[in-house]
């Protein structure tokens, strides 16, 4: 305790030290102790090579001038593009030189999606489906990125990425089945329209809460890394969802846990009615990446080749180096947020028309195709007719199909049905026997408990999704 007394003279009252201070004193020569003994006043300053910050948290240089870092919102991160607004390649060395068939697939996917969107939006207006969300103006972000991935790369989406599924050849029948919630819906009619999912095509089922998919995608990427799967996970979200805490969580985890993931932000200017000026004050989403230690880029989302190039390179490096990449694809939401929205309430028709007419991913690609001699007006006419016909056929079929067996209301809550839930299922069955006329049973497949039991057993045998 003589040490304590000596220390008390140096620091003043030993009471201020507390228990921690006493512990330090009991271990003389501890690093903290040696440094903190005050030196006698010295005039000389020796520039010391050792005079660098030693903090565990950050060890950049010292600076002796008070200066706040300016957030760079004026010049900001530049927007990478390959084509100009007329579809002409600007820098030939950036042209990915994709074969004709592949680029035609881009075009057909984007236009088929556009056609499907028009018809399904209308069908909601006519009361045939309950809800719909279009993808107008963002088709380039979907197709450019999907084309740069392997077919087995796992996709976590938000809700405006139907073009990714379209590119992966998800049949029109199944898009429609989900929107109608009919008996062919793989999702068994459980969710609102556009909440697609497909195990075979490695597209995780969409959920309505925003940004929840972001940390999940990171976990999936971590598992892929551990499995040496040579797979990347891509996670799509909008600039609005990027404000959610889950986005911050996902970015930080991906960087610290070194996950092979592509974060793909569709910055389309609006989150329902909220413009970007009310969503964030920094330089968009791309500027956040470096804050987490994440390689980041901003691209012209309406330039399908820019999106393709960025995603392709991000994929290659994410898998090779086990680190996340952030791509912010700048685009514009030409349509309303959904069928429950009328965007004329918060933006001008002129603004929308500009994007529709002057900077549309489909037009830009068509100009490119035409300038290569890979497409012409006749083919355009024929394809429009053909794609419309395909969509109408699928649509009519989807309308005619019944809804699934109502006892499917009760299955898949758990892998096995708990006893209490089975009792509730039986209670509904009995209720329908007496009161069935008040329920829309005509539109549904016949109640069949056995079908539900069978699907329980199949699920148990099938095992987990990949």
């Amino acid at each position, binding site marked *: 305790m003589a040490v304590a007394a000596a220390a008390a003279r140096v620091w003043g009252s030993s009471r201020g030290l507390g228990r921690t201070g006493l512990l330090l004193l009991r271990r003389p020569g501890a690093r903290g102790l040696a440094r903190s003994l005050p030196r006698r006043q010295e005039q000389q300053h020796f520039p010391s090579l050792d005079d660098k910050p030693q903090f565990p948290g950050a060890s950049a240089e010292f600076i002796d001038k008070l200066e706040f870092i300016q957030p760079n919102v004026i010049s900001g991160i530049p927007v990478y593009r390959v084509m100009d607004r007329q579809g002409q390649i600007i820098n030939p060395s950036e042209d990915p030189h994709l074969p004709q068939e592949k680029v035609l697939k881009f075009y057909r996917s984007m236009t088929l999606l556009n056609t499907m969107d028009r018809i399904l939006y209308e069908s909601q207006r006519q009361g045939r489906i309950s809800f719909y969300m279009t993808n107008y103006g963002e088709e380039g972000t979907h197709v450019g990125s999907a084309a740069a991935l392997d077919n087995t790369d796992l996709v976590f989406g938000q809700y405006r990425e139907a073009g990714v599924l379209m590119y992966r050849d998800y049949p029109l029948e199944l898009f429609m089945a989900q929107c109608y919630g009919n008996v062919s819906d793989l999702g068994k009619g459980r969710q609102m329209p556009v909440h697609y999912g497909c195990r075979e095509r490695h597209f995780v089922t969409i959920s309505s*809460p925003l940004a929840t998919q972001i940390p999940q995608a*990171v976990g999936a990427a*971590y598992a892929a890394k551990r499995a040496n799967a040579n797979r990347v996970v891509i996670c799509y979200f909008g600039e609005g969802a990027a404000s959610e805490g889950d986005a911050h969580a996902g970015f930080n985890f991906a960087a610290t846990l070194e996950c092979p993931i592509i974060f793909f932000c569709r910055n389309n200017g609006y989150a329902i009615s909220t413009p970007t000026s009310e969503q964030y004050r920094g330089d968009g989403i791309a500027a956040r990446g470096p804050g987490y230690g994440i390689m980041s880029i901003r691209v012209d989302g309406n330039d399908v080749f820019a999106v393709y190039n960025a995603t392709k390179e991000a994929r290659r490096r994410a898998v090779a180096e086990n680190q996340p990449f952030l791509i912010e694809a700048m685009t514009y939401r030409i349509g309303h947020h959904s069928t429950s929205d009328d965007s004329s309430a918060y933006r001008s028709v002129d603004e929308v028309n500009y994007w529709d007419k002057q900077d549309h991913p489909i037009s830009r690609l068509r100009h490119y195709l035409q300038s290569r001699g890979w497409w012409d007006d006749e083919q355009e006419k024929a394809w429009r007719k053909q794609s419309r016909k395909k969509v109408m056929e699928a649509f009519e079929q989807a309308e005619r199909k019944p809804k699934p067996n109502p006892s499917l209301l009760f299955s898949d809550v758990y892998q*096995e049905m708990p006893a209490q839930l089975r009792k509730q299922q039986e209670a509904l069955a009995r209720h329908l026997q007496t009161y069935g006329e008040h329920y829309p049973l005509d539109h549904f497949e016949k109640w069949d408990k056995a079908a539900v039991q069978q699907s329980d057993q199949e*699920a148990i045998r099938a095992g987990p999704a990949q």
Partner: protein
Amino acid sequence: MAALAATAGGLLRLRAAGAEGQWRRLRGAGLLRGLLQPDSATGVAAQRRLVAHFTFQPDPEPQEYGQTQKMNLFQAITSALDNSLAKDPTAVIFGEDVAFGGVFRCTVGLRDKYGKDRVFNTPLCEQGIVGFGIGIAVTGATAIAEIQFADYIFPAFDQIVNEAAKYRYRSGDLFNCGSLTIRAPWGCVGHGALYHSQSPEAFFAHCPGIKVVVPRSPFQAKGLLLSCIEDKNPCIFFEPKILYRAAVEQVPVEPYNVPLSQAEVIQEGSDITLVAWGTQVHVIREVAAMAQEKLGVSCEVIDLRTILPWDVDTVCKSVIKTGRLLISHEAPLTGGFASEISSTVQEECFLNLEAPISRVCGYDTPFPHIFEPFYIPDKWKCYDALRKMINY
């Protein structure tokens, strides 16, 4: 959050180290005069930190699972995790501070044994921990996520309720996160106050799609945790922190399972059914002994074990026999899980009831610090409620 968590762990360690060292330091610094003396001449009793409100009752050594070892609760957890990582190469454990062994030592030694890619720290972010865990589970790998205190699980509530619980249902069984297990220390600890004492099982009981499990002892904990990890549904496993060191019994070294959604009748009786889970099981066990001794009342004691989906049949069967039901939990009374049990039992067993169902629970307040001894549903409150039921 983190500072307090470290402090809480630190508090427990210091407590374990004993008051001895503390006396020595204070005496040496000449500060002891005027402070607490064990037996003061003034006759005022020393203000000691109070003893626990329960006595842990170990179960008899299990015979059917092979060699056993003396383990406390956290060691039993470690053993379960060790077994899991040994037989399931996809299994990983993650959360705040799990790498060095965890603030409650549940993961000690596992990183060295299984590698840093399998036992690792995450940033301080519960919504991230659970979201990340869901993502691992979606690929089919086994994810064991630790939330440092159940009190801090709420940032992850959206991921648990809106995502994990609904993953299979909403996808039509195309996807699921069944191989996710979330573990969290739970319940009162003597000094935990608002944010180190909570029992949030009732929030999750209202969420179809997840399972919620609370063990009462090391043997139960290992078997139930292994069942949760192997279960094909996302599970939340609450570990009574006050039992981590205090509960010691013989636990099999090899893996074994204790079934989920099965309550256990740990003592048979004929006059009244007592239901609890976790630490409170030991309280009601003692109440059963008091009731027998002082009132000649024969109690049937049930450990519910799984809160969701809960074993309605075992509880109802018991109440049909005894005609009386007392349910007790630390969590606040209103909306606590006792209300669910009470409601179901009165539906199923109305005509068998001899008295209103009694709930002895925490008060409808946040969990207090200095008032903990008054807050908790201790054996005297349970005994008093039991007495009133018998005399109804």
